[in-house]
């Protein structure tokens, strides 16, 4: 990770922690704000990957993966944006599903890292399992919106802390001679 990437990662983590605290204090408004931030982030990221595909990655062997990734992320972003007018219960459920999906991807990444003998697999798998457990908790307490928000916020704060720790982790580069 470069210095700029580290700074960006820490910045995103701090914003997420602040948003989580806001959600805990104001569970009703906080939920909508969180969904809005999430949707903007997903739309921006999706667009970035789509532009990257059409300008560069379409010539790359395996570049279609970038296109699909961009489309999925972009669609998730638009879908999240359309959820502001539905009952909060469904919004919470949606956020939980997104979190669960992200956790599953993290676990798969961790398993792949383990297969590749990378040292980062323990962190990835434990992060994924905890996120999955939190999503499961949210579903159990789905009738109490406040409890769900607290559990969800705890998950976000935990993820942000992991993000900050990751920013300080050494990343090995194959040295080219």
């Amino acid at each position, binding site marked *: 990770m470069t210095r700029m990437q580290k700074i960006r990662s820490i910045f995103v983590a701090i914003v997420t922690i602040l948003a989580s605290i806001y959600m805990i204090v104001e569970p009703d408004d906080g939920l909508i704000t969180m969904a809005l931030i999430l949707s903007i982030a997903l739309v921006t990221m999706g667009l970035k990957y789509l532009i990257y595909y059409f300008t560069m990655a379409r010539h790359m*062997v395996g*570049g279609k993966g970038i296109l699909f990734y961009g489309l999925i992320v972009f669609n998730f972003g638009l879908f999240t944006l359309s959820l502001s007018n539905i009952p909060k219960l469904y919004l919470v459920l949606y956020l939980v599903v997104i979190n669960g999906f992200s956790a599953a991807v993290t676990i798969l990444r961790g398993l792949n890292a383990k297969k590749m003998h990378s040292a980062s697999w323990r962190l990835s798998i434990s992060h994924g399992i905890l996120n999955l457990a939190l999503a499961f908790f949210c579903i159990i307490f789905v009738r109490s919106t406040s409890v769900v928000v607290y559990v969800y916020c705890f998950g976000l704060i935990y993820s942000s802390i992991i993000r900050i720790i990751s920013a300080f982790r050494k990343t090995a*580069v194959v040295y080219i*001679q």
Partner: protein
Amino acid sequence: MNIDFHYYATYLAAIIAGYSHEESSEIAYSAQFVDCCTRTFLTSIKAPLSAATTQSQVELINAHTDLLGLQDITRIWSSFHFLPQDLYAEKKWCTRGYRNKYRLICGPNGDLLAETVKHAKGKSLESVGLAMHVLADTWAHRNFAGTPSLVINNTDYYFYEIFSGDAGEFEKKITFRHSTSTPDDLNRSIYTNSLFQTSENSIMNLGHGRAGHLPDYSFIKYKYLPAWGDFTEIVKDNPSDYYHAFCQMVYAMRYLRGNISSFDKDTYDFEIVSPYEAQIKEIINKRQIDSCADWKALGEKISGNIIDDFDVYRYEDEYLAARKEAKDNTVLGRFFVAALRQKSMVTNKIYKSGNMLAGFSADFAEKGFVGIKDFKKLVDVATSRGEKHD
């Protein structure tokens, strides 16, 4: 390529080309020093930082991948380790951004290689060694670019090692892992490579990191799909490439020494090397991570002299002890001038091809001295030698 080829094989090639033991040792030192001359080292001896010919792991991890950072990385890696083969290569239906990266793909026998060798003519032994490093790497690092790029340098799971047996050739799937602390497992074809990163300009996507150290092993023959190749399979025959590199080094050094009058691309001194062909090919084909001992033994046998082990600090005291005006006449001083000259030449060629990935290049003849002050040294050296500036 590793120290075994850059130091010991280059020494042997210099001896075969007709250089003395002392001259060959200096050439070999400079050829290997290209892999050691980092900004960290330059800072420690207060040398011009623009003379950096490589970046350490720590420097790479902390490198900025903004516009200026990428230009700095590209200047270093394209000039010394991944010399572009064709700066005017065309690819249909691609954007300018993609084409600029595509044009930096390294390969042997390009116009820039001829320029590199001719640039070293009449210059110091350090210039010769540096040029030999660049030449050798055009063979080892072919098909990868000296700039961070996912769309050029990425590889996928389609990677097979090709073995020769009694019943002909057979293949074995190569497995990659990201454990840099674990040595490559040659018996099981398990090798270390860099992590897959979807970011185009990630440092992980610099050079041949995604193919691990495979290009650095002389014995290995493998096939894979390069990211830029439109699904065309490439067979990388390192034993053949390394032998070609060796014979081209002998040819280039005979030219630089004045034995022959011109340097032509795609020309090799196979005949002059033929008395040693069997021994050289035996070392190249031997399945081992480090072949220093074998190259050293052959070099000593042929030259009749003891080859000193490579010591990065061998000439440091000489440089530090020299007065300011005499530093350019030390081994390291001459190397730094050679490095600045090579970097300046390659950056200029890339810039003139309409490609800004290596940054701006100002023409001294037209604009006088502008830009990074370290490069003023080139003007001073040329002036002191009475050379014409251009």
